[in-house]
């Protein structure tokens, strides 16, 4: 028989409408609540339900590249050299671009010299990081393995204000690909959320809708905030709960077939 269960994922419209239904409201504040729902999902995506994406960004002549428009924060940054990924080292002392000149960024960078040193990275590496699996140019990358740590040949700095990634390296790496794994805002027209996140989202909408109103008492606001925090904690606990198999693994890890004494 066909599975008739309701969907485990719902869209933002569902979350907003279920909130309106619970509050016995009419449709007059729908657009406002939808915006609050977007804000709430963005917060979820930064914490409990991270929406991690991978972008391949091509470096320009200044060894820099633009960050994706939905970028919030990065989790891994690597560069593809010789078919292999190498993670980079953060350096907050890298100078930022001076500004733009007729639409082009200008920057005094170390772009002279040879990049041989960088390209001659030792292939004898035994540890590194796995990038999230993703699609790029129609190809699915199940996971990318990047050598990481201890090389310090190339450095990066995020220019938050101009939403650019700046690299410091000897020589020019123009045309090379930066692979950026980042947390995305994760909200678009097709965004869906797991059903167990609706409770949090509803309480977030209720709380935010009264938070700045002068005709609502502090007690009511505090109550709404508490409900929201509780829903968030419940969601977090559920997402990080100990599964039965994990419990059994823990239980059996110290068992052996040795003779009992």
């Amino acid at each position, binding site marked *: 028989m066909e599975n008739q269960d309701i969907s485990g994922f719902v869209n*933002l*419209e569902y979350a907003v409408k279920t909130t309106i239904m619970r509050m016995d409201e009419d*449709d007059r504040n729908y*657009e406002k609540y939808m915006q609050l729902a977007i804000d709430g999902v963005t917060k979820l995506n930064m914490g409990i339900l991270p929406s991690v994406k991978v972008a391949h960004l091509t470096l320009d002549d200044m060894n820099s590249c633009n960050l994706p428009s939905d970028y919030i924060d990065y989790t891994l940054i690597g560069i593809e050299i010789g078919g292999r990924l190498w993670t980079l080292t953060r350096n907050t002392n890298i100078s930022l671009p001076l500004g733009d000149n007729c639409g082009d960024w200008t920057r005094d960078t170390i772009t002279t010299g040879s990049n041989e040193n960088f390209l001659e990275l030792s292939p004898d590496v035994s540890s590194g990081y796995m990038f999230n699996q993703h699609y790029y140019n129609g190809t699915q990358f199940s996971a990318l393995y990047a050598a990481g740590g201890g090389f310090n040949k190339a450095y990066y700095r995020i220019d938050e204000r101009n939403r650019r990634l700046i690299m410091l390296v000897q020589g020019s790496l123009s045309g090379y690909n930066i692979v950026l794994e980042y947390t995305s805002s994760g*909200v678009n027209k097709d965004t869906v959320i797991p059903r167990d996140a609706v409770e949090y989202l509803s309480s977030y909408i209720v709380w935010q809708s009264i938070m700045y109103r002068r005709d609502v008492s502090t007690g009511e606001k505090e109550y709404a905030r508490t409900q929201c925090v509780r829903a968030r904690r419940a969601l977090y606990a559920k997402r990080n709960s100990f599964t039965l198999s994990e419990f059994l693994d823990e239980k059996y890890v110290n068992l052996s077939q040795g003779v009992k004494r």
Partner: protein
Amino acid sequence: MTKQNLIDLIQHRLSGGDTPQELKGKYHPRIIEKHCELALNYLVNTIAYKEAQRNMDWGVLDAYAKTYTDVEVLTDEIRNEKYSVLPSKYVALPKNRGIRMVAPIQGQDKPFVYRDNNTKWLYSSLDVNTVSADVRFYVEGEKIFYSEHIPNVITAVLIKMIVPFSDLGANDEVVIPQGFGKVVVDLVLQSMMGMPMEKVSNNNNANTP
């Protein structure tokens, strides 16, 4: 009950029975019509709206609404916006709740979303404007304007709205919920006698109705 029925009923009441002497047989139907309008507006604006707000039961207002099923969608070339001319005047309530619903003719499950007039500047720069594809509408005078989300295939819409008594034809139905008929008649008579409306709330505040 039609509009004419209600006017006749009031006139009949005024012609005899225990009607006060100062009212008996003195009023022209047009005057009665105006007093009916006052009474019904009072009923919707004060009694029904307050009740709906207090109980969060907006269906109370729907009891007074009239449905128009084929209202044309036009284009304002100068403003580059699509709009419809409201088929009649509507009773003004907070957040334009006198307009109960605007939807595609066969799409009441996907009604247009209300937006306050002059808030386009606000919402157009928020994420909701791109994330949600729902059509928004706002009211301006006797027209409703639609947001850019309205698809070209929608050439006519369905509108449910609370129509004032004065805009009804003689044979149009006057929507008076069951049990409120006597309230309306009493309100009309009170209005004609110059009596203040009976206080309906019990909060000892002279400023509330």
